[in-house]
């Protein structure tokens, strides 16, 4: 094929774009993914029984705010990583800040606690399962987020995959908050963080395969 023929082919017809196509696809992906994670959470774990009353406490919303802020940062990061020649730049601090805030809150809680209570505070009742539960709930969001990113053109597939994995796991963590009985930042700072980073690692691993274009 002559390159001139290819140019002719590409230039023929209308090169105009449907501008809102990408935001629309992301909105769909996040909605479907999160819905999928909530349904999976309801089916496998069930909502916590005291959800109605606990939802009136500030600490519950602080817990939800943690993955929500991570998701916001990861979404900004993914949108930037999906555009060639654009750096992630200020998305990194936005992604990192919620972790740092929760780590500080966790260490303050531990500092206040009597030495004997510290380990139980960190381990809670569910440390063995928490990261894996979050990883399982990430399956629907993972598929949705990767589908959305394929509409962009990421050039660093490993990093894009990692941040996409983080976006899917942070959304899954929001769903998991409706089940999870743990209410201490000391617990979230370790096990929620691991739960969110596991799918990010899987994303980094699969990124070069799933996002290649």
């Amino acid at each position, binding site marked *: 094929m002559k*390159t001139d023929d*290819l140019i002719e*082919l*590409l*230039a023929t*017809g209308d*090169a105009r774009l449907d501008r809102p196509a*990408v935001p629309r696809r992301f909105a769909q992906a996040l909605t479907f993914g999160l819905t999928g994670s909530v349904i999976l959470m309801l089916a496998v774990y069930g909502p916590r029984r005291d959800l109605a009353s606990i939802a009136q406490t500030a600490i519950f919303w602080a817990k939800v705010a943690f993955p929500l802020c991570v998701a916001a940062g990861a979404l900004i990061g993914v949108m930037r990583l999906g555009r*060639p020649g654009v750096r992630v730049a200020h998305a990194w601090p936005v992604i990192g800040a919620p972790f740092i805030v929760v780590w500080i809150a966790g260490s303050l809680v531990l500092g206040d606690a009597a030495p004997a209570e510290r380990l139980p505070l960190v381990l809670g009742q569910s440390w063995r399962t928490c990261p894996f539960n979050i990883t399982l709930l990430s399956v629907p969001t993972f598929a949705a987020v990767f589908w959305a990113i394929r509409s962009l053109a990421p050039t660093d597939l490993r990093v894009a995959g990692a941040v996409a994995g983080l976006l899917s796991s942070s959304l899954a963590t929001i769903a998991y908050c409706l089940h999870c009985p743990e209410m201490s930042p000391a617990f979230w700072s370790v096990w929620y963080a691991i739960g969110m980073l596991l799918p990010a690692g899987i994303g980094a691993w699969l990124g070069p395969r799933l996002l290649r274009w």
Partner: protein
Amino acid sequence: MEHNGSNSAPLAGIAAHHGLGYSETLDLKPVHAYTALAPGLRESSFRRLAFTGLTLHDAEHRLKTLLTSGLEGDQGAYRAFLQALTPHLRGYLRKRIPQHRDDAEDLVQETLLAVHNARHTYRVDEPLTAWVHAIARYKLMDFFRSRARHESLNDPLDDHDDLFAVTDDEPAHARHDLGKLLAHLPDKQRLPIVHVKLEGLSVAQTAKITGLSESAVKVGVHRGLKALSARIRDIRSREPDENR
């Protein structure tokens, strides 16, 4: 607006936004440092740098104007954009894989397809050269990776100024055959491409002929070109030396 690339990457951005005067001022800084060591070079370096600055800025500006008009529906401008971009891509890619001339032309075409398929990821407030360079570099790295040659260890540490600085106008053939590539696509992608892109029919006419809806025709063209690009890439990765 931060962009990939080495230290001088932001300069292109500044040059693009503020015009030649500013870019010249910034470009001259290294010259002063350099001429302190070798005073005799001052004059020629000055000219060369100033000239390069002008050319790069011109290429950036000209290509950007064409692309912007193209994306607003001006078919001629879009064609001119692709035509003007091609020698830059060819120069960039041939310089980096001089031992694989045919591969270079394949990659030129792959990159053109990629630029077309990813045109929605370009934003007018960004330097075009950074965007195009990232795409060309991605395709080049993908080529190295899939070939698993030892070049893959050498991350090309070029910055995107390079891209518009080199051109290679000698046309060439890529080895893939469009007819064969198209034959692999499903009808709902192949027919829209044949009618809209090869025969130049309108979307409405194509919809009438194929019985597809107008939006299905548009989607078919879009997905078909993406599939075409993926197919070219897969052929390249699977059978690097087989003739296409």
